[in-house]
């Protein structure tokens, strides 16, 4: 479906690192010298230092590991048929929603409960075999793409809704439960799970936690991190810890916040407690047309500046509305340069009041047409067009590539204009759907993988958008994660000192680097290799690492 058709062969095996490069800024190379009288209380863990040195400097190589004993052990742990090893059985797991990057894993394990997850993790830990967790495989950054020398740990069979509690407004679910299934189960109580990724019919809550996923209603109701209370986590060595609680605060460091969005690198989520939100009584949506993208972008900022937090504030440009309209018939004005969808929810009185205020702001910003949904059916139709944007891209183009930068809202129009220039530069079309209210962009670059050179141009086009996102004061990923896809772009956004801290965090949770290696956080060596002359604080990044 959405793809860049390049196999990523051996992309993360590199020559040995130069060992002398393990040195921080300011001549700090003695890491084991705590101060004070009560030294014994301090953690001076040398295996962490070693692990840190390894994973920070370069990607690990797991090729020399023997698997025979591991497999016989796994067979004893797992039920019949829950360990896949034959090529045909493995093929469905070779990629996630970003099908350009594919790898065949050693095997796929399908445990049925937490005890089996623990046993699988212990076995892999002892064998030194990498583990890649997988939920529904809808990720868009290659996060769940297998490791050739590793095991895919599918959480798909852990799909029980353990408990829905109307009174405390919480749901306890296993990680394989689909996002939408939670809201469906909570609906009889007038409650729902607020974060609503467009993939909610398919994606799993475990995947949402790993990616800190968002959705069109996150502007008002928050991201995954704002709606998860507690997670049970199986660590790389098979230990189980509980992060967060059913109370609002927990003791100590906020490990729950650190875990959310960690892309399967810190542990395996085996049970998630989410907060449920009362269903608003009423919702209405405004569909506003603009004959100029700058005016549309400015209108987004103006709505927020007027003190309004809409339940959703989305933007689509003309190529997007034109792709969608013929088959959804949402009633979009295809002559508009851009449209905005602006939703209000709450009590009837609240919505009436807010819609009137939003309308006034949009009119003041030069909207050429404003329609307010007059029924629930019409509101759903307005959204149907937005929700069909990705499939529509697939209809108008053989392939498309979805980007995910976030920028300050005031730069939305600048970004759209820059993208128009890039379309000319690369000779490719791009349609834009934005979670405009929080500045999250999804430019969809249209291309044909069968035309020689188009794919490379698409990748270069995408990389320029990400770089612009950083230059505009934003980030390379708002909700899809870094995964495998944006690992090089991480070298644009972070300098070596920050990356070292990331590796330190990784080592604290997974000292042997077995969980999802080669994803999310690039090794310093990789960044040096990537060769960007990232300038940070007046210094070239990674000066300490020899360039090959």
């Amino acid at each position, binding site marked *: 479906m959405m793809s860049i058709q390049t196999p990523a062969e051996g992309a993360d095996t590199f020559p040995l690192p130069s060992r002398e490069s393990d040195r921080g800024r300011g001549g700090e190379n003695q890491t084991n010298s705590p101060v004070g009288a009560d030294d014994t209380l301090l953690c001076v863990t040398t295996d962490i230092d070693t692990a840190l040195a390894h994973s920070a400097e370069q990607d690990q190589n797991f090729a020399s590991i023997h698997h025979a004993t591991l497999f016989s052990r796994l067979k004893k742990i797992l039920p019949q048929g829950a360990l896949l090893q034959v090529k045909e059985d493995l093929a469905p797991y070779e990629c996630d929603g970003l099908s350009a990057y594919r790898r065949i894993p050693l095997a796929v394990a399908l445990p049925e409960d937490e005890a089996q997850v623990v046993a699988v993790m212990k076995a892999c830990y002892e064998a030194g075999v990498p583990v890649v967790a997988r939920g529904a495989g809808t990720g868009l950054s290659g996060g769940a793409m297998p490791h050739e020398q590793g095991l895919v740990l599918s959480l798909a069979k852990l799909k029980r809704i353990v408990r829905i509690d109307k009174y405390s407004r919480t749901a306890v679910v296993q990680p394989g439960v689909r996002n939408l299934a939670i809201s469906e189960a909570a609906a009889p109580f*007038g409650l729902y799970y607020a974060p609503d990724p467009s993939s909610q019919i398919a994606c799993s809550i475990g995947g949402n936690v790993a990616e800190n996923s968002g959705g069109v209603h996150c502007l008002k109701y928050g991201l995954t991190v704002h709606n998860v209370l507690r997670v049970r986590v199986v660590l790389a060595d098979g230990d189980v810890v509980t992060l967060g609680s059913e109370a609002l605060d927990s003791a100590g460091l906020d490990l729950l916040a650190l875990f959310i969005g960690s892309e399967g690198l810190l542990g395996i989520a085996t049970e998630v407690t989410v907060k449920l939100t009362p269903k608003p009584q009423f919702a209405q949506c405004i569909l506003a047309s603009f004959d100029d993208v700058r005016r549309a972008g400015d209108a987004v900022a103006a709505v927020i500046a007027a003190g309004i937090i809409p339940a959703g504030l989305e933007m689509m440009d003309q190529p997007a509305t034109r792709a969608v309209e013929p088959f959804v018939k949402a009633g979009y004005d295809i002559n508009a340069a851009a449209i905005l969808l602006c939703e209000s929810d709450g009590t009837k009185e609240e919505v009436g009041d807010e819609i009137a205020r939003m309308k006034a702001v949009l009119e003041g910003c030069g909207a050429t047409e404003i329609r307010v949904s007059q029924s629930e059916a019409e509101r759903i139709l307005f959204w149907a067009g937005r929700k069909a944007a990705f499939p529509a891209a697939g209809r108008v183009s053989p392939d498309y590539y979805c980007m995910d930068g976030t920028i300050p809202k005031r730069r939305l129009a600048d970004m759209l204009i820059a993208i128009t220039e890039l379309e000319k530069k690369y000779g490719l079309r791009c349609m834009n759907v934005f979670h405009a209210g*929080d500045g999250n962009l999804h430019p969809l670059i249209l291309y044909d993988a069968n035309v020689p050179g188009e794919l490379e141009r698409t990748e270069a086009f995408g990389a320029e958008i990400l770089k612009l996102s950083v230059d505009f004061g934003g980030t390379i990923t708002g909700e899809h994660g870094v995964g495998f896809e944006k690992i090089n772009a991480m070298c644009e956004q972070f300098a070596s*000192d920050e990356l070292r801290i990331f590796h330190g965090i990784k080592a604290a949770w997974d000292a042997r680097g077995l969980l999802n290696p080669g994803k999310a956080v690039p090794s310093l060596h990789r960044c040096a290799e990537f060769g960007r002359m990232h300038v940070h604080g007046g210094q070239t990044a990674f000066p300490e690492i020899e360039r090959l």
Partner: protein
Amino acid sequence: MSSTTIDEFRQQILQRQPLRIRGGGSKDFYGSVPSSMQESNLLDTRMHSGIVSYDPSELVVTVKAGTTLQALELVLATRRQFLPFEPPRFGDDLSAATIGGAVAAGLSGPRRATVGALRDFVLGLRLMDGVGRELKFGGEVMKNVAGYDVSRLMAGSMGCLGLILDVSLKVLPMPMHEATIGLALDQQPALELMNQWGGEPLPISATCWADGLLMIRLSGAEPAVRTAQQRLGGDLVEADQAAQFWASLRDGQHAFFAQTSPHATLWRLSVPSVTPPLEVGGSSLIEWGGAQRWFHSEASAEEVQTLAHRCGATATAFRYAPDRTQVFSPFAPGVLKLHQSLKHAFDPHGIFGRGRLYPEI
């Protein structure tokens, strides 16, 4: 920017002596004080103050750690915006507390249950780690999943991981309208109502029960507040009086929080909101829709911690504890190990805030 101040901070850190990071000192009473602790030097953040950038239409403000909450909130108020997590200011004149201290303490005020905690509003920050490196995490945008969420990890870290230099926070428009109602109720029925109403789409922004009176604050569009007021009943509290009441809760100045005896500790329990009234042999004050319970007790820390553990809660010896060696709930061993390793990653020489959070870190 104040690079000389930053350099001074670095100089202090590079001495490798234990450091206690301090802003206005409004929370000196809070956190553990290990008995065997070597005297720490103070690192005063107040020289590093001021607003770095503020763009109301982005709903983001970036501010230096030593800026007072009061100064920051005044600036936000000129644009009818505010810090929705209502960080407590404590102290006698409320003017001492700094934003850096608020973030490091991670404490939230009356709105916590409905809009979220302080950590939910932290978008990014710049910090200096234990070897004097300046690091930047997160950013000034609402959605950002590049790299681990170090910014939120710093919220509530009590100055034991690193020195927060600047922080970017999400702010929100002030509510258009507010009303507070009071209902005379016993604890049990009050808890039931708080939980029942929490499950309905009502514009409740804060709740408090104490001494037979349930106070509910409604915030939002005027018509919504009015309808909710009719639905909930009770008596409307006069606006000034209501504002004063919620501020006194936020800042720990409500009469309930005053010391009751030289042997009694003021405990804060973070509990599942549906927890029945706690048997604590004295009066309680309840906030956050039932999820935060305060009481004074002369019982031992072990007894209170056991009680908390039994109801899936954590307990903090918040104030007046005769012994401050460990004021926070103990962890499971696996979680403690993670704390120690993380501490090591940020502060390998163990200089920051030793023992303030836990004796082991």
